[in-house]
């Protein structure tokens, strides 16, 4: 070996090691590629590369009528499909100045909270599994299955509901809906302490999450980190409280805010949100008004020319819909502000300087759904 090659090898050894995490790494929950620069086990920086499942949903929406758009929004953030549907529906209803029946508002709120519960349960299961606690996956999915059964009975599908339509709901809720939801609440109140015993109190879990991935309030606001991830850093951004839509102004609930800003705080926000969701459903489930499941709409929905905006709180943060209409039955332009996109790009701030094992905990605690980022 010549001297020059040996010299090159020595120089290479001192260089940073760049490794691609993904695009199919299971712990990234989707097809995300993280370009991780490592120095030994320490992460120097992360560059997220997105777009592996870009389907052009915004462009597809321009060719579809407003009722047809609904089923595309399911496919963005599939774990909060109901809230995505609701965002477009509320935007269209506001633009047309349609007053939907009270029943629709109540049912939408209940379904949104059930969907949030299902989403957080899946997150809890997967988060535990990311950190090496395989048990949580079975316990979380066991309880989530009951919510999906409620969904299946009323909408016919478990994950991608397409249950909302501009002006109301596709069809009325199933007669068993109230009873089954009440049964579920009673069941889940019993099972939620198990979650704490299994994972929250676990010493290994606590040491892997406490003080890891610190996100300050200023950084959270600067990056637009919303939802439970933002609320873990003391950024009060719950739209259900600050800009109530549907029936959220009729219920009493607390906004969960933790100020620590670490992975454990983000975990705690979601755990407490599950309890709050149960409270919200309990307040509404017994007094659903019975004034029809849809408002009177024209057969072909045309929005007046102009710009319309609506934002809702999904299970991951603030989803905003911005519609530019030129008076036709299809939108001229539609833009979705997805919460996951902002939440992903803060990851460099959180993980840089930490260990690579902490990167898994951080990406799990941000609760990313990649199709929502790529759209």
């Amino acid at each position, binding site marked *: 070996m010549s001297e020059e090659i040996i010299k090159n090898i020595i120089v290479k050894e001192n260089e940073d090691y760049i490794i691609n995490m993904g695009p199919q790494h299971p712990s990234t929950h989707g097809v995300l590629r993280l370009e991780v620069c490592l120095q030994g086990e320490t992460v120097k920086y992360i560059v997220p590369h997105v777009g592996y499942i870009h389907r052009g949903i915004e462009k597809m929406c321009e060719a*579809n009528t407003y*009722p*047809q758009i*609904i*089923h*595309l929004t399911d496919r963005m953030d599939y774990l909060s499909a109901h809230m995505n549907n609701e965002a477009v529906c509320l935007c269209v209803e506001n633009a047309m100045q349609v007053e939907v029946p009270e029943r629709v508002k109540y049912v939408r709120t209940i379904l949104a909270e059930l969907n949030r519960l299902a989403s957080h349960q899946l997150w809890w299961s997967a988060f535990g599994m990311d950190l090496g606690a395989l*048990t949580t996956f079975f316990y979380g999915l*066991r309880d989530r*299955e009951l919510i999906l059964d409620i969904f*299946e*009975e*009323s*909408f*016919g*599908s478990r994950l*991608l509901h*397409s249950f909302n*339509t501009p002006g109301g709901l*596709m*069809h009325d809720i*199933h007669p068993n809906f109230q009873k089954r939801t009440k049964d579920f609440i009673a069941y889940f109140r019993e099972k939620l302490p*198990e979650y704490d*015993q*299994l*994972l929250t*109190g*676990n*010493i*290994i879990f*606590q040491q892997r999450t406490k003080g890891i991935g610190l996100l300050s309030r200023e950084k959270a606001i600067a990056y637009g980190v919303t939802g439970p991830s933002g609320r873990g850093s003391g950024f009060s951004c719950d739209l259900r409280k600050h800009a109530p839509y549907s029936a959220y102004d009729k219920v009493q609930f607390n906004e969960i805010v933790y100020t620590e800003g670490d992975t454990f705080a983000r975990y705690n926000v979601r755990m407490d949100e599950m309890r709050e969701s149960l409270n919200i459903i309990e307040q509404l489930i017994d007094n659903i008004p019975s004034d029809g499941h849809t408002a009177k709409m024209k057969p072909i929905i045309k929005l007046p020319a102009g710009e319309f905006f609506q934002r809702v709180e999904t299970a991951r943060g603030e989803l905003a819909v911005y519609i530019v209409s030129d008076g036709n039955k299809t939108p001229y332009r539609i833009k979705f502000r997805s919460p996951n996109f902002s939440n992903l790009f803060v990851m460099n701030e959180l993980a840089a300087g930490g260990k690579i094992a902490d990167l898994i905990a951080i990406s799990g605690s941000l609760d990313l759904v990649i199709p929502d980022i790529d759209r």
Partner: protein
Amino acid sequence: MLNYLKEIFGAISSLWAGMRITGKYFISPGQIVTQKYPENRKTLKMQDRFKGEIIMPHDENNQHRCTGCGICEMNCPNGSIEVLTNRVPNAEGKMERVIDKHVYHLSMCTFCGLCVKTCPSGALAFGQKFEHAVFDRQKLTKILNQPGSTLKKEAKQ
């Protein structure tokens, strides 16, 4: 030293709390939540509203309700429905629209339910079948109206 011991015992008790839950379910699983799917196919009952596939219900006289208006085709967001119609003279000699084939591409369907909801004559419905795996993609293109079927004439009120 005391803190050190305290930490160790705290850690052990936290692990014990988790193990107690798993142990409890190991000894007394209670209700079995998993379904033995391929074995229970005979007794498996899907929900009434389950969106398995789109079907066109026919009655005992091999009659359906589809008038061939094409509203389902117009409302379908991804072109999974094609309605092919013929014009044939009816009993009074007038030309009338009759469906030839109601083609349904299951491979493109996203089960949004707009066709079933918007059909003015209630000719479409959701079927309960969900085992759609086939070896050839062509088999996923289905013709919903049965051969020889005719339009069901409703008695006028």
